[in-house]
Structures are given as C-alpha cells and as structure tokens.
C-alpha cells in the first residue's frame, strides 16, 4: 500500500474517532505500517544477515557498515561491557517501582505486530468487506453498459497510461531514494540507547512531570481548543502505546493523530529540563522542531492548528511524560 493511501485510511479513522477513542488511529499506524514501511527501511538501511540481524527482514549492507559480509561478520554476543556513555547520558536513579525481572511485561506487545493494531485492522477489514457486498450488485448492472464505452476508450487511454506509468516509476524511485537517504541517517538502528523496549524507564533524563495542556497549564489552551472544536489531546496512554508498537515493529516514527506529521521518536532529545528537540516528517520533508513543554510553545510560538498542538503534545509526552 502506498504512503498516501495509508495516510488517507488513518485520517479517516481519526476523523471517525472521538477524542477518547483516538487509539485506533495511532495504534494502527504502529502495526499497520510496518508491512509497507519495514521492507523499505530494511532495503535502505537494513543490515539483514550481513549485519547479524537475521530474521529482521531486508537485505544488503547497512548504511555505513561497509560492504560484503559473511553473515557472521557482526555476530557478537549481544552483551558488552556497557562502558561507553550512551548519547542520552547516565542516570543516577532508576525510575519505576518494580524490581528486576526477566519476564516480559504484560503490557509489552509481541514483536512484529501488536494485538491492538491487529484488532483494528480486522475491524477495518470487516467493514470494508460489508461495503463491498452491497456495492457488488450495483456494479454488475452498470458494468455491461460501461464495458463497450470502455473498450473504445481503452486504446486511447493505454498510451497515456504507459507514459504516466513511466513517469510515476521515476518519481517513485526518486522519492524512495530521498526517503531512504533522509531516514537512513535516523534509522532506528542508530537511535539512542533509550529508544528501545522499556524506553519509558530508560530515558536518562528527568521525566514523568509532563501531563498535557493542563499540567502544567498552557494559558492559550482553553480559547484555542474551543476554536478548534476539541476537548482534549491524545492521551498519554495512546502515545505510549504507539511508541511501544513502533519499537516492537522496528518502525522509526509514530503518526501524530489529527495531523500530517510523523514523529521520529528516536530523535527526541531534551534541551534543558523543559524543552525538547525532535525531528518530524511532513510528507517526505524532514523538519527539526523544538517544543517548550511547560509553556506549550512550538518553535517559540503557540500552535496554530490542532495538528501542531497534537505534535507538541506527542513529543512532550515521549520526552517528559509518565509511562
């Protein structure tokens, strides 16, 4: 499925969902996209067997990892001395109240597809199936009338189609290369150490204080929200679940609900104690932004759209929210 079609389906889901049920739109993004996105990412930056990631899909050598390999080139032990300071720095106090455990947390979905995402896909599939049955009988009646006209037109259209197809292929490969080039640098393999399963408690900076527009209160929220016709932003639970899905599905971004933004969650980095820097994609264009999570400003200004507010909220939640 192409990216535009996916976005349309996501937006439709988002439009149909009330604020309290925004979950499907965001969760679907985590589980639904990998089938289309993961192979692309793997082709662009994927190490496949050459990078010791057998079973993770894709092939070819990873960007920057050099050429030819035997399949065991980087087959290391998986653990190390842990002596190199991670990019997020060291923490001095562990977060969370639970003790050490080697058991998988119940809230963590199985790798390669979350249950929530699968559930949403099934719901959508059933709806689509029902619609198809109703439309089919109408189509049968109209089809024979249209057929003759279509045969006449086909010859003319075919030539145009072939020309368009060539253009599309060129455009598509160009976009793909651009996307790979851009995202390869931020491919989740190169993400900071905290952007992994258990990310919420692995963030080495002070977190847990951010609570959306109300905590700390954003002065502009009330009138602006009324003008937008919204009562709330996406909840912390939904955003956290989307990041969990993305981590488990090896996807480097989450789709920000009610917006055209893809948030590259692994680029999130605090600037001081209340501001966060991050990269987003708007279509194929990467943009670096900065949000002040205490004042509620995006690049120094109050959000102009609900999409900007949702983006800021998502970035602040991943950076400073509780899990």
């Amino acid at each position, binding site marked *: 499925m192409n990216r535009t079609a996916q976005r349309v389906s996501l937006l439709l889901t988002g439009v149909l969902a009330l604020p309290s049920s925004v979950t499907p739109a965001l969760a679907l993004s985590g589980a639904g996209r990998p089938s289309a996105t993961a192979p692309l990412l793997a082709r662009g930056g994927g190490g496949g067997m050459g990078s010791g990631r057998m079973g*993770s899909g894709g092939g070819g050598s990873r960007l920057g990892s050099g050429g030819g390999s035997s399949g065991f080139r980087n087959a*290391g032990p998986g653990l190390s*001395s842990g*002596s190199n*300071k991670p990019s997020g720095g060291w923490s001095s106090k562990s977060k969370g109240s*639970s003790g050490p455990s*080697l058991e998988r947390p119940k809230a963590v979905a199985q790798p390669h597809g979350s249950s929530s995402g699968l559930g949403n896909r099934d719901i959508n599939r059933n709806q689509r199936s029902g619609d198809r049955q109703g439309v089919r009988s109408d189509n049968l009646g109209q089809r024979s009338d249209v057929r003759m006209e279509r045969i006449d037109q086909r010859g003319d259209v075919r030539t145009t189609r072939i020309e368009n197809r060539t253009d599309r292929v060129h455009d598509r490969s160009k976009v793909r290369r651009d996307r790979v080039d851009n995202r390869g640098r931020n491919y989740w393999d190169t993400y900071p150490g905290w952007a992994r399963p*258990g990310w919420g408690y*692995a963030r080495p900076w002070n977190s847990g204080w951010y609570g959306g527009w109300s905590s700390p209160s954003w002065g502009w929220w009330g009138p602006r929200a009324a003008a937008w016709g919204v009562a709330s932003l996406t909840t912390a639970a939904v955003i956290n679940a989307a990041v969990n899905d993305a981590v488990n599905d090896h996807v480097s971004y989450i789709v920000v609900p009610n917006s055209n933004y893809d948030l590259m969650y692994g680029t999130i980095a605090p600037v001081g104690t209340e501001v966060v820097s991050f990269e987003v994609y708007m279509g194929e264009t990467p943009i670096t932004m900065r949000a002040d999570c205490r004042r509620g400003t995006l690049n120094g200004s109050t959000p102009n759209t609900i999409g900007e507010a949702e983006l800021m909220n998502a970035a602040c939640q991943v950076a400073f929210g509780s899990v």
Partner: protein
Amino acid sequence: MSMPLLLAAMALGLVLPSAEARAEPTETLYSLETRCSVAGGEPEPCVVEATKDAEGTTYRHTIGERVETVRISDAPVRMSVWDPSKNTWNPLNSAAARFSTNTICFNGRDLCVVNANYLNSVREERPDATAGRDLVQVRFDDSGRVDLTCYDDGCKEVR
C-alpha cells in the same frame, strides 16, 4: 643496564613502559540508585557503582550490607564475579538481559538488577545484535568464553 645500553635501547624503542605508566586510571562511570534481587528473592534497594579500568568495567552492587561485584570485559566478552573469600574472580556461567524491564541478571537469577544505564550503553555498543531484541541471554564455558548467545524466542530452544 648500563647507561649506554639504556640510551641505545631507548633510541630503539625497546624500553617498555613502567607498570605505573601502563595502568589506566580507574574512571567512575556512574552511581545508580536502583533495585536488585539476590537468588530470586524480593527486590531490594541497592546502589550500583560502575567503574572502568584497563581490565574492563566493574559493577559494584551494594545491597544492604552485602556487596556483589561483577566485572565485564570486551573483546572477547567475559564476565566474572568477585569471590571475597578467595580473593579471586570467578567466571560467570550465564547472563541475561531483558530490555523492556531494564534488567540484567548474572548466573541465572543469582543477582538481578534494574540498570537502564547498562542496557542503554549495550544498545549503542551492539546496535546490530540488539536491534529489535528484548531478551538476550549469554552462556559462558568453563574458561569464561561465550559459547552461546540467544535472543527472544530463540532462548526457548536452549533451555
């Protein structure tokens, strides 16, 4: 060694650095207030002090009055635990890490600790091996060399 010989050796670069010069200073990486469990017991508050020297990285776990010290070296990866009664390092049999709980365990469940610092560092030191992984287990042979590594569901095959 006579002075002329010493000068000649220095000129040829044959003089080895003194032991003091070779030894790298110990570098404190961090001190972490966290939780540990011993022999599968209940979680207890503990402090992990991580230091780095020429031999590797040493993790000193203080759990109440008990101290458990583990040393991990790279290339090849070796892990050992300090035996204070014999003043020796004993190779570990195994180690396991669960990223989603930020837990690392040594010798089965003999010592488990919540240490996101360690796992964040491992995630960046071993990007290819750890990408997309949650559970990592390592087994060592009698000499302390890794003889088996497994990931996630693959670890069910080696029990």
